[in-house]
């Protein structure tokens, strides 16, 4: 019984079962994810449009579409808008999230539970519902936000302010919406890590006479660095791809001034029905995101290899 050399897993020698077990998932991913990706690269070099959807006819246009996109002022406006809006969202939600995590460590158990419950509720609301709540709160005439701002008597009478009609205001309300829903995950993840900081280090620093901000900067923050790095990268990916909130709050308007790459691509492909150009835009967007997160992707590949 002990003569058979162990290979770690009893199933080790079987070759057929794992292939059979993976086949269904593999087929679905090949057909519904991999094939479309190949199609996307292919379509990016064709003039596939509304007519092609019915007739199946289209022709190759080489790199013409890429040349058109790269010389299109609207594309570059959306490009830079996406970069800075993503940065504003990531910075806002990380700073608030990390601050709330630290705040939670200073609270009594009851108050901490209240904060957790409030966070979970903001986090759980489906973003379609949250966008509608936002439209209602910021509605001109009856919106509660305009009423509150008017009561402050700082900005004058804001009752009739239409947040969707002004680029800066539209971005502000969308920023608030996305940050409101992004902070809970960041705060709870960081808090989980912050409870693991060894109390002896903090106690030692305190005995050395270090101030609270200094303890936070020199003891807690270095400990939290990997966690903050992870939630930052995830936030970059999620915020870069924000679509529903922009679509449902401003539709990318006024005059396309809040349209990010995702919205710009969607309008090109599904409103203008220029699917070839849409595919080229999607390809450019995906490559851009891959470039931004390449460090993380390399880390994923390495961790995938270390795992077994």
């Amino acid at each position, binding site marked *: *019984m002990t003569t058979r050399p162990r*290979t*770690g*897993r*009893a*199933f080790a020698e*079987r*070759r057929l079962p*794992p*292939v059979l077990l*993976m086949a269904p*998932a*593999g087929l*679905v991913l090949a057909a*519904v994810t991999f094939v*479309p*990706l190949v*199609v*996307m690269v292919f379509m990016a070099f064709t003039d596939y449009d509304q007519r092609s959807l019915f007739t199946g006819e289209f022709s190759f246009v080489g790199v013409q579409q890429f040349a058109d996109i790269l010389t299109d002022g609207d594309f570059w406006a959306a490009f830079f808008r996406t970069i800075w809006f993503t940065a504003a969202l990531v910075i806002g939600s990380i700073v608030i999230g990390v601050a709330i995590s630290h*705040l939670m460590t*200073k*609270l*009594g158990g009851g108050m901490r539970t209240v*904060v957790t419950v*409030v*966070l979970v509720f*903001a986090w*759980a*609301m*489906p973003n*379609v519902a949250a966008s*509608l*709540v936002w439209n*209602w*709160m910021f*509605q001109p005439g*009856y919106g509660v936000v305009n009423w509150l701002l008017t009561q402050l008597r700082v900005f004058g009478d804001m009752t009739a302010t239409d947040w969707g009609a002004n680029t800066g205001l539209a971005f502000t309300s969308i920023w608030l919406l996305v940050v*409101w829903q992004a902070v809970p*995950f960041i705060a709870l993840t960081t808090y989980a890590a912050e*409870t693991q900081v060894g*109390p*002896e280090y903090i106690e030692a620093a305190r005995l050395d006479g270090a101030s609270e901000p200094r303890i936070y900067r020199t003891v807690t923050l270095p400990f939290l660095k990997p966690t903050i790095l*992870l*939630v930052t990268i995830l936030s970059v*990916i*999620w915020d870069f*791809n924000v*679509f529903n909130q922009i*679509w*449902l709050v401003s539709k990318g308007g006024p005059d396309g001034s809040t349209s990010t790459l995702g919205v710009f*691509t*969607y309008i090109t*492909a599904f409103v203008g029905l220029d699917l070839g150009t849409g595919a080229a835009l*999607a390809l450019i967007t*995906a490559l851009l995101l*891959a470039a931004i997160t390449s460090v993380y*992707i390399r880390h994923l590949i390495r961790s*995938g*290899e270390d795992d*077994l």
Partner: protein
Amino acid sequence: MSVVRRRRLGRPSSVATVIAIVFCAVWAFPTYWMVKTAFTPRPDALSSTPTFLPLNPTLENFETAIFQAGFFDNLRSSLIVTVGAVVFAVLLGLFAAAALSRFRFGGRRTILVIVLLIQMIPGAATLIPQYLVFNEAGLLGTYAGLILAYVSMTLPFSIWMMRSFFLALPAELEEAAQLDGASTWQVLTRILFPLVLPGVIATSVFTFINAWNDYLIAYTFMKDQSMYTLPVWLASFTSPLTGTDVSGQMAASVLFSLPVVVFFVLLQRKLVTGMSAGAVKG
């Protein structure tokens, strides 16, 4: 550890408590405002001076929402595609996860890395080519097509998550069973699958939330209004006479959010770790 920790955390600062109360008031307000509006009679909601407490609470908005055109049709669509997506993503994920955790074979690492990379692809990038492929395959505007799109969106994470549950089981389990003469299939179905049931449940919840919340794919792929899902119904919620009915819309939002909120509250801890692994696409 717990004694030391309690000492450090057990001295709540009053400044922190005040900041926390302000934070909670701000962060809970949108949710509160949604629920409050949902229970406010429609004429009261559209008043130039908002009332912050529901003075004349009513259920009529929920009635309006439920009897709004399309609610039952689109609830049915949501249930069909969500249940379909959960069943397939979890079943296919369970098999693949078993293969990738309980067997050794060449190329396993490569497959794992590919699964991780697929998980990284933004949904917006696959939307256009999927639309074209589904158009060619006659799947546009069908429940089967929508289910397939959701399965492809959630399957990589489903595999990844259930694999971690399989890896937690000791190798001796299948060794002992095989010595007793059990076939590979018997070991899987009688021993391993029942033991990863908690993983199956957690993965089901993640898949449910992703499919239930999706707006973009359903909005783009479905053509027949009666086959739209609830998020699309919700986003286009308007009163036939006077345009948008906010009270009805907020009541509908409450109803739509309820199952997701319940799952979040129940699974909050798992969600924190799950999200880090990319469980719910933003």
